[in-house]
């Protein structure tokens, strides 16, 4: 629906617009086609300013008249077809909203079938379709690359690598879709206050050892790991994709695997956020991304 002014302002707009346009017509007409002969622009001698500055008496060219005439005819026709003169919505009943709705109707008519087909298709079928995978790559580049990198390998020691086998929130197609659609919020609390500097150092060393597969029973960090970390990351450090708790027993590190980085993680915690894309992408787009990522 077009956004139109109320009655008073509509009249105001219409009257001033029409009257002033008629005024413009009057200006052009009476100068181009004066009535009577008394209309020589300078009766008698012509004024001269500043030594030699004068106003010539050439008649304005007729083609210019046709130029402004056609511009005004166009204007009148346009204002009869489109909203412009106050609350008159124009013969075409055009509005930005209706135009967009029509465009989307066309859009759907053209692409709905193919998009529905994508939603219904099996993942391997999509993955084997090179054209669709190119589309998926474009979607990834447009929506995901700013964080996960153009190559999807993660970056900034904050955004996970999506091209490896390690999935913080689970790598099944359903889990990936869940991640894309609704987003994820990880919640690794800061442990500085509970563990103290020594505790943090011990746990960091233990976790580092876990990753190298060298964690021994009697490791000084093991006890603290057992009381603070085990609930999420599990006794063997394999993590829990339901909580987004990463696997600590492999060699993949989201926030960095050096002792410094692990210490930082333990001290201040980590709150990795994956935004939800359910509102930004449609079902077909999400499906394509899932197929692309689950390869």
């Amino acid at each position, binding site marked *: *629906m077009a*956004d139109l*002014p*109320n009655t008073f*302002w509509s009249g*105001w*707009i219409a009257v*001033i*617009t029409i009257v*002033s346009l008629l005024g413009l017509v*009057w*200006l052009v007409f*009476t*100068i181009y086609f*004066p*009535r009577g002969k008394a*209309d020589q*622009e300078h009766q008698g001698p012509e004024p001269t300013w500043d030594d030699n500055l004068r106003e010539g008496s050439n008649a304005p060219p007729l083609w210019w008249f046709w130029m402004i005439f056609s511009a005004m005819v166009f204007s009148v026709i346009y204002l009869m077809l489109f909203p412009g003169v106050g609350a008159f919505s124009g013969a075409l009943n055009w509005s*930005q*909203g*209706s*135009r*967009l*709705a029509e*465009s*989307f109707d066309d*859009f*759907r008519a053209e692409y709905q079938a193919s998009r529905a087909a994508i939603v219904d298709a099996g993942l391997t079928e999509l993955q084997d379709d090179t054209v669709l995978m190119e589309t998926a790559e474009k979607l990834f580049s*447009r929506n995901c*690359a*700013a*964080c996960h*990198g*153009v190559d999807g390998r993660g*970056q*900034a020691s*904050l*955004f996970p690598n999506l091209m490896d086998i390690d999935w913080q929130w689970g790598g099944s197609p359903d889990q990936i879709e869940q991640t894309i659609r609704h987003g994820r919020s990880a919640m690794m609390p800061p442990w500085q206050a509970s563990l103290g500097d020594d505790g943090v150092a011990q746990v960091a060393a233990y976790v580092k050892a876990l990753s190298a597969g060298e964690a021994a029973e009697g490791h000084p960090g093991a006890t603290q790991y057992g009381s603070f970390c085990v609930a999420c990351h599990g006794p063997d450090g394999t993590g829990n994709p339901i909580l987004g708790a990463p696997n600590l027993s492999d060699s993949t590190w989201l926030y960095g695997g050096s002792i410094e980085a692990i210490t930082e993680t333990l001290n201040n915690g980590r*709150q*990795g*956020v*994956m*935004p*939800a894309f359910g*509102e*930004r992408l*449609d079902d077909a787009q999400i499906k394509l991304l899932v197929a692309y990522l689950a390869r």
Partner: protein
Amino acid sequence: MNALKLHKKLEENNALLIFGILLVSSLGGLVQVLPSVYQESLRTPEANTRPYSALELAGRDIYISEGCSTCHSQQIRSLVAEVERYGPYSRAGEFVYDRPFLWGSKRTGPDLHRVGGKYSDDWHRIHLVDPRSVVPTSIMPGYPWLAEKDLRSDDIQAKLRGLRSLGHPYSDEEIENAPAQLEGRKQIDALIAYLQMLGTGFVEPESGAGDSSE
């Protein structure tokens, strides 16, 4: 009556000439600007549009101060490609608390009207300080000073009171508590808070992406 004769009168009389120019040049504004100022639909917020919180407002003022709008628009036009790229097109009612408006005139960078929630806070923090660390081909300037400079909290009450006098519904409590919201924070925190709420004042009616049936 003849336009040339009338003009002759004006060009020989200073005051008449001034008056004539003023009259003729004011018509466009009287038609286009004045009724718009009274048009209710341009002053009515969308259902989910709310005034900026103190922190968001401070962030918005940083956005203004740094001239972000020289490169980023905040206006999604009602065109299929824009809706596909950026989300539902911008509604007038979403901007009723925007003083000034920040629609911009140039997209050197992408439109930001619906950037809220698209990236995590962490991403914004890294990206604002050094854009090329996450977007290698970016030509956006870095804003390292935003992460270093403390957020001013001494002027926020004056700002909120000023906006309240212009009709933004801030309560006494909100104004009272505003400085506390800002204290101890860096400028970048406010800017991120603002970016994250951008475009959230509009909720799509139930139907496909960007559908516009109103």
